[in-house]
């Protein structure tokens, strides 16, 4: 909340505030419009899905769908942080591939070895992400091109480690995704953990500086924010979440793949945008991104129960992406005209 207020105050002229000192409900609704549209879309998809298929409103279905969406959710969490910072991270595709091939070649039945390698993958993710951030800051490069380059490099390393899909993941690691606690499987608990993480993170000093630098880099810098440090943490976290996505993905595939990561690069951006995260930085919440990830995942289910060719799924996701981005651009225009 505090972050939003500061961002709002930074963007809007002071007179607007004084004219309407009470709670500006319409302004708030406009601010949240993209998020509300995403919620509406999800509700609509679930309603159609639920009316065509029995057993949709059960815990089992929730467990299944969350497991199906979790890799994208983890990847999109990192992407959301980067987008709020005003950047973009294409290298997560390479990191996810690299994570799965390291897991598939190094994980053993011995839990302690595996745990060490899992930690190593997470550390590698953070390290490589931080390196992206440093390159962007120190050499004053564009995030798009830097992460395009590191994506290619990481993908190349993954292909050298494991040239084709394969390797094996110990069954106890695969079993993690279906482990239950009070009727809910671990992916659902991870979803709750992600929401808790964001609730905590966006109000921390780091979270606020990331959002402030995404809103207006120059004024953040002039207020004493170290842009280098912000970039290091932002891209580091993105790499960390990509590594996490890789560790979860292998529970679903049971193998490593040097090319699988590219399937998550643009969908992670799409999930965030559907959820109302602005590509121009400074605006967005993880809750929206997670809803966006659910929307993209459930379209697949919907296509299945409608008995149409599964090839319609990309068409549907493209149309939904366009609709939601149009909704947010209209809302943004309305908000701007209210200010002026």
């Amino acid at each position, binding site marked *: 909340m505090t972050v939003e207020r500061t961002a709002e105050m930074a963007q809007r002229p002071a007179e607007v505030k004084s004219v309407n000192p009470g709670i500006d409900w319409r302004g708030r609704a406009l601010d949240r419009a993209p998020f509300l549209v995403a919620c509406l879309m999800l509700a609509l998809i679930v309603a159609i899905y639920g009316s065509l298929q029995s057993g949709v409103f059960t815990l089992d279905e929730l467990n299944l769908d969350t497991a199906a969406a979790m890799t994208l959710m983890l990847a999109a969490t990192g992407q959301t942080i980067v987008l709020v910072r005003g950047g973009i991270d294409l290298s997560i595709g390479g990191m996810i591939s690299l994570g799965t091939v390291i897991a598939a070649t190094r994980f053993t039945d011995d839990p302690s070895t595996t745990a060490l390698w899992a930690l190593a993958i997470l550390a590698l993710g953070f390290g490589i992400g931080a390196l992206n951030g440093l390159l962007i800051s120190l050499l004053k490069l*564009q995030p798009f091109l830097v992460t395009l380059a*590191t994506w290619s490099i990481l993908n*190349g390393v993954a292909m050298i480690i494991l040239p084709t899909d394969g390797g094996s993941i110990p069954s106890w690691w695969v079993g993690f995704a279906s482990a239950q606690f009070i009727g809910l499987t671990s992916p659902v608990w991870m979803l709750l953990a992600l929401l808790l993480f964001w609730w905590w993170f966006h109000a921390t000093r780091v979270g606020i500086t990331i959002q402030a630098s995404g809103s207006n880099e120059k004024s953040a810098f002039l207020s004493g924010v170290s842009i280098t440090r912000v970039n290091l943490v932002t891209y580091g976290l993105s790499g960390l979440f990509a590594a996490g996505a890789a560790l979860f993905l292998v529970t679903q595939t049971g193998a490593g793949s040097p090319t699988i990561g590219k399937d998550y690069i643009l969908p992670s951006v799409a999930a965030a945008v559907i959820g109302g995260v602005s590509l121009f930085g400074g605006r967005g919440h993880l809750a929206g991104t997670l809803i966006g990830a659910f929307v993209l995942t459930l379209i697949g289910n919907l296509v299945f129960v409608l008995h149409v060719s599964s090839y319609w799924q990309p068409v549907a996701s*493209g149309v939904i992406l366009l609709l939601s981005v149009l909704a947010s651009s209209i809302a943004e225009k309305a908000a701007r005209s209210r200010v002026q």
Partner: protein
Amino acid sequence: MSAFLTRNRLIVLAYAGMVVLLLVTALFSPGFLSVSNMRSTVVLAAFVGIVALGQTFVIIGGGIDLSVPWVLNSAAIIMALLCGGQDLPLIWVMPLLLAGGAVIGLVNGVGVARFGVPPIIMTLATNVILQGLILVLTGGSPTPSAPALIQFLSVGRIGGFPVIALIWLALTLVATLLLSKAAFGRHLYALGTSATVAEFSGVPTARTTILTYVASGLTAAFAGMLLTGYSGQAYLGMGDAYLFTSIAAVAIGGASILGGSGHYLGTVAGAMVLTILTGLLPALNLSSGALLIVYGAVILLTVSIGSEAFAGLGGRLRRN
């Protein structure tokens, strides 16, 4: 001359890099500089170069076109389906598909320029929509082989020169004229430097933006048809590699991804560099994984050289 070098430092560097790469490759594999090998390198580079032509325009204008892979793939598949291996239908199929590519570009451009949709999202959406529609259309099954005429355009020769190299040369001339001599070029650089300033200076920013995406749709569709001729068949996924290579060629050619700078002549060198690297690696006995690593390193290197930080460093060194 010196002013020319300063202004086009990055383009000159891209060509210098290309020559150095050629020599290095020749060192490792003596047959590399042979006429037949150079011919096949230029042919392969031409596909990247043609797709990257539209991408160059879009990027100079401050946008990006991610819809390239499936515009290319759609044109390839629909051409193969409509022609059924015959030459005659090409008379109407080629213009039809070029128009189709232009329409997709028009949709992208209108979305970006009129509705304020971020280019990444707009072109990503059209890309997945096209992908889905083509998959629905073909049901995933293979298409008839390419007509002989289009094969002639991609692999044929006129007096020793590959036809596609001549096509590429002609397109390069057109692009250079558009960027350096036409009002469109001036508008484009103004738009890419600052859309607001351009708008207030009377530049038709919306029209210019839309035209860049139309150009990109046209070149991607054209490349798709030529590529079908080269492989003898259209197949699903044939455009995927061109997203990365078209953007990489523009970046290596010295254009800023923020827009406002760069030239198609640089992109030509970028396309050559990428293709020569593909030829260098078998000579060094390196895997395709290594190729991706080298691609990434080359992109990082070229964008670093082009960055303000590097320019500032150069200035400091000179002052000392």
